[in-house]
């Protein structure tokens, strides 16, 4: 974001909040989330279960509206998607912005052939003729690496393996040539060898189509290997943000440090692993100050009283913490 300011961002999210209500209580699942994404850039959203990463992704496309209230700004080509009525969102969903979900087993319609499901997207979002659509469908299956694409168009999802189904999902998502891809844990249900194939595929397609990607994952290894930017979420907020190399090499938020240290890499075998003490707070009962304070090794009195804002710390990084971890301090311990 320093030198290439000429480029206008593809997507700008500011102050995004999503609150669900259950039994009279309000659950702030996403709080004041903001980030920008440029063309061809891959942004990773990481955090533990319940940190709000999937809800953030869904809120961008207005998919959480039905269950809760979304406020804030999602600027897409000059329009605020949050304020947009369903009817105007429909051509954007699946057309300009596509989404792939975590479970390839349940997100395809088991009663329709793969060909019909790709065709649906094309029918809704392009003006292609039937023969052009079929050609594109075959081309897409080819592109995502499904052998004998032509003959597999007539097959049903159950005839594909997990990895192949996720490829089909990607083919459907990319059929209408979207400008932005939202990927919600696209490889979590897959084996490592297949995960590597799918991530490479998403990356090379992002490059070919100059497409922005937001990748939600809980695997820091996946972030390290695929993303350009990363945002770490905790209890519904972004706590640290920046270029992947900078954040992973010298994390500044104690939570990021804790996450990285829990991964058994470069630790002597069969020794105790570092684990962040305690459990994530209930969203129904968030601490008044910093949500991470009760588990934080760097906690000070300020942390209990007020909530640290996500502030720019220079070098394209941002941090929401009063007691930042200095370089080498956390990783070496």
């Amino acid at each position, binding site marked *: 974001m320093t030198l290439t300011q000429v480029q206008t961002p593809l997507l700008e999210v500011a102050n995004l909040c999503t609150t669900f209500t259950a039994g009279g209580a309000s659950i702030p699942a996403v709080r004041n989330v903001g980030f920008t994404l440029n063309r061809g850039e891959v942004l990773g959203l990481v955090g*533990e*279960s319940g940190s709000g990463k999937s809800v953030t992704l869904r809120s961008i496309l207005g998919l959480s509206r039905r269950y809760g209230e979304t406020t804030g700004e999602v600027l897409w080509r000059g329009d605020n998607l949050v304020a947009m009525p369903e009817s105007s969102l429909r051509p954007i969903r699946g057309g300009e912005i596509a989404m792939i979900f975590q479970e390839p087993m349940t997100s395809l319609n088991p009663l329709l052939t793969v060909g019909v499901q790709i065709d649906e997207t094309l029918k809704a979002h392009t003006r292609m003729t039937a023969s052009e659509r079929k050609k594109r469908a075959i081309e897409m299956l080819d592109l995502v690496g499904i052998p004998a694409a032509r003959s597999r168009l007539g097959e049903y999802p159950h005839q594909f*393996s*997990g*990895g*192949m189904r996720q490829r089909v999902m990607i083919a459907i998502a990319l059929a209408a040539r979207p400008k932005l891809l939202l990927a919600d844990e696209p490889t979590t249900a897959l*084996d*490592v*060898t*297949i*995960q*590597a*194939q799918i*991530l*490479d595929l998403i990356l090379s397609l992002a490059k070919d189509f100059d497409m922005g990607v937001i990748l939600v994952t*809980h*695997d*820091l*290894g*996946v972030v*390290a*290997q*695929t993303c350009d930017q990363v945002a770490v979420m905790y209890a519904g907020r972004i706590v640290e943000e920046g270029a*992947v*190399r900078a954040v*992973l*090499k010298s994390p500044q938020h104690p939570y990021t440090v*804790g*996450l*990285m240290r*829990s*991964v*058994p*890499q470069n*630790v002597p*075998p*069969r020794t*105790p*692993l*570092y*684990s*962040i003490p305690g*459990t994530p707070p209930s969203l129904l009962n968030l601490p008044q100050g910093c949500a991470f304070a009760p588990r934080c090794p760097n906690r000070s009195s300020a942390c209990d009283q007020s909530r640290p804002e996500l502030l720019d710390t220079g070098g394209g990084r941002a941090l929401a913490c009063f007691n930042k971890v200095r370089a080498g301090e956390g990783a070496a311990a």
Partner: protein
Amino acid sequence: MSETVLEIRDVSLTFRGKRGVLDVVAGRPPRDVNALNGVTLDLKRGETLGVVGESGCGKSTLARCIVRLHEPNGGEILFHGSDVFAPDQRRDRSYNRRVQMMFQDPYSSLNPRMTTSQILKEALLVHGMCGEADVPERLEKLMDLVQLPRDALEKYPHEFSGGQRQRIAIARALAVEPEVLIADELVSALDVSVQAQIVNLLLELQERLGLTILFVAHDLRLVRHVSNRVAVIYLGRIVEIGDSETLFASPSHPYSQALLSAAPSLDPDDKGSKIHLEGELPSPMDIPPGCPFHVRCRHKTPKCTAELPVLRPLEGRGAVACHHAEKI
């Protein structure tokens, strides 16, 4: 680490597929799933043996065979030298007590209508671990052992988080004082920070109680961390087995190499020399002839398509089932 606790000798298991009249008329071959095709393993006292492989390779089936949830079609499983599937052994329930299994999904492996104390009490009484009067004391000890608060005893599974449920599952397994724990993807459903807590607990308990653990998982970093030895399974066969550090530092079988290089590194600069596996795991209904890995292997030769490599010891390494292990 000397005495062998469990010996698995050439175990194979085929699940018979349904074959309707139409299939017979049409002359279709039977759709049998060859889940295990001759697995041989030793589990030594006090060690942790990691078992890794892709989904569908047979690692969970192997775990289930060991605890007698499936009966193998061939081979034998010996516990302290006696066949656990022999008729006289089948009636003996002490094996069920001494070898305990813990399951992957903490949400479906605990009965939602029983409180923690009922779950644990059932295990204690079924195996006659203690009299009714001693139960409360035992339960409290178990809670301390797995580091759960004592008031957890009167709660139902839905009141706990995933990590706490796995602690209850561990407590249930330990209630009956087993010698061997079979952990089938014990921490796969948990977040990394919770994973670390459970792994630490497991390592600590192993140390204190002298447990032998078979640790089945697909997370290679985790397996490397907890295991003394590791077995890599591909299509129901062990393709490589050996000391954990040696195997992870320099894998000998081309499949182990590819599997290890596929795990994404935490270091963004370490793009590594990735070996990309082409294609997917072949169906266990239709295992390729010769070396089952040859369809995805970069080093295949005509010999690989014709002849099944046997697991043989390699100097300075473990045992490898590959014709060309020396050259790779």
